[in-house]
């Protein structure tokens, strides 16, 4: 897969863009490229940040920008998309849907029953495209078409940590109490971010997630 655009966001950071669409195939390629760089880091490499359809590479100021572009391009040309290793292990995340504070708004706007929303959200698996917004927040997709909903007109000021929410084609989990504009349809007892844990983040880009509905009692027992 060829880059469609290469540009700097800092003297020591270059973004390699592969498309301007959200696609699982492109994201898979980006994660493979990230893994290839991390497995064999070049001299001066600091870190990679994968996003939906781009990979940004950070490096020390002793490295020349054009040299980094050359190195990353060579990694990229050696990647065979067919060989791109998908991490097929499915990570199950329990969700108590009755704790979703916006579930009633979602059911009435989408004209679905609670059972249908829960079934639709939990019967398929999702790809973690990237982590961002706040530490540990996974952007996951792709949501079934019938669950697509616009963001709230006015963001909520305090969404509880563990809130499982939806927006457009995406679903996500708020790791800490924070403001947010996505509709909350459930809550997970799993801690998405814990600085004392290694790794601190429960999920990373490229993971496959499956939600499992649980009762409020099971939620409380989990804690």
């Amino acid at each position, binding site marked *: 897969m060829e880059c469609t655009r290469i540009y700097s966001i*800092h003297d020591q950071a270059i*973004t390699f863009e592969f498309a301007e669409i959200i696609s699982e195939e492109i994201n898979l390629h980006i994660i493979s490229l990230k893994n290839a760089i991390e497995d064999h880091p070049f001299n001066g490499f600091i870190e990679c940040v994968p996003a*939906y359809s*781009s990979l940004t590479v950070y490096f020390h100021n002793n490295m020349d920008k054009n040299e980094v572009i050359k190195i990353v391009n060579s990694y990229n040309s050696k990647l065979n998309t067919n060989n791109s290793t998908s991490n097929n292990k499915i990570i199950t995340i329990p969700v108590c849907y009755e704790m979703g504070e916006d579930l009633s708004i979602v059911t009435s706007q989408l004209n679905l029953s609670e059972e249908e929303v829960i079934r639709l959200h939990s019967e398929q698996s999702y790809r973690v495209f990237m982590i*961002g917004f706040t*530490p540990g927040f996974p952007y996951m997709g792709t949501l079934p078409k019938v669950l697509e909903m616009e963001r709230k007109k006015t963001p909520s000021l305090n969404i509880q940590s563990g809130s499982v929410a939806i927006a457009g084609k995406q679903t996500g989990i708020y790791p800490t109490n924070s403001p947010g504009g996505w509709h909350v349809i459930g809550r997970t007892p799993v801690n998405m971010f814990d600085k004392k844990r290694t*790794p601190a983040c429960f999920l990373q880009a490229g993971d496959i997630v499956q939600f499992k509905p649980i009762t409020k009692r099971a939620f409380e027992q989990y804690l």
Partner: protein
Amino acid sequence: MSITILKPGFMCSIQDLGRRGFQQYGIPISGAMDMQAAKTANRICGNEDEDALLECTLHGTEILIQDTTVFSITGGGSTAILNGQKIPFNKQIKAIAGSIIKLLPSPIGFYAYLAFAGGLKTSLDLGSSSTYNLAALGGKNGKPLEQNDRIELKNSKPNIQHANIVINEHGFGISNWKSTVPQLPHVNDLVEIKCHKGPEWDLFEERSTSAWFNSIFIISQHANRMGFQLEGAQLEKKEKKEMISTAVTKGIVQVTNHGTPIVLMADAQTIGGYPRIGRIFNDDINLLAQCRPGTKIKFVSI
């Protein structure tokens, strides 16, 4: 060896050169807003560049020095008073136990750095002591400093401990030499900041791109460690087009849907979805960090 925060002032937090390697998990780099001033403060005290120090936003901070120590203050945003006497920035200062540092208002600069010989003894979160409040990382319990917080100091190098500084009748002494530092902006200055065209430069109307390099912007009251919002020309896109979120970092200028530019600073989010009209020239980010709300900025194309 320790110091105690008597008053935190506007905001006083522990910082270092930041947290690297965790942006893919949504964790910002953080670290000092003015990296150069922070490094200078540490070097004056014989510390490593990476040592933890205090970052004070404007004035109001008061600190009690519990044990005789060498320290330095760099950057700006305040006038420093030690035991009632004004002290210079960018010099080595030795103060006896019980001395009190107070930061009073000054019209120059935005962030001051207080380094103590040996550096602050802090715990590391993900490799750094930089305070990042949102995820409770670094600093003292992941928060900016509060009244009565006590911070231990590491042992300083012997040559600093025994620095030949004569203590005066006010309980402190000042080194003869001074570190050379760039001049910091006065709040009434018009500051020129060099800027590259951003990745989405072509998405903006010509009227807006022309305004970016030809009109004057003012740092708004919404200026903090995450970013500096700017007041001035409204920047419009040629057409309404949603961007797919991608990596952003310190120095990137995002434009919100309301047409307001925001320069991302030390606690910059790792991923953003707004079009980016500019990218501040790396060497000018420290200068911009010292421009407090109200300062006029002219962006110069490079």
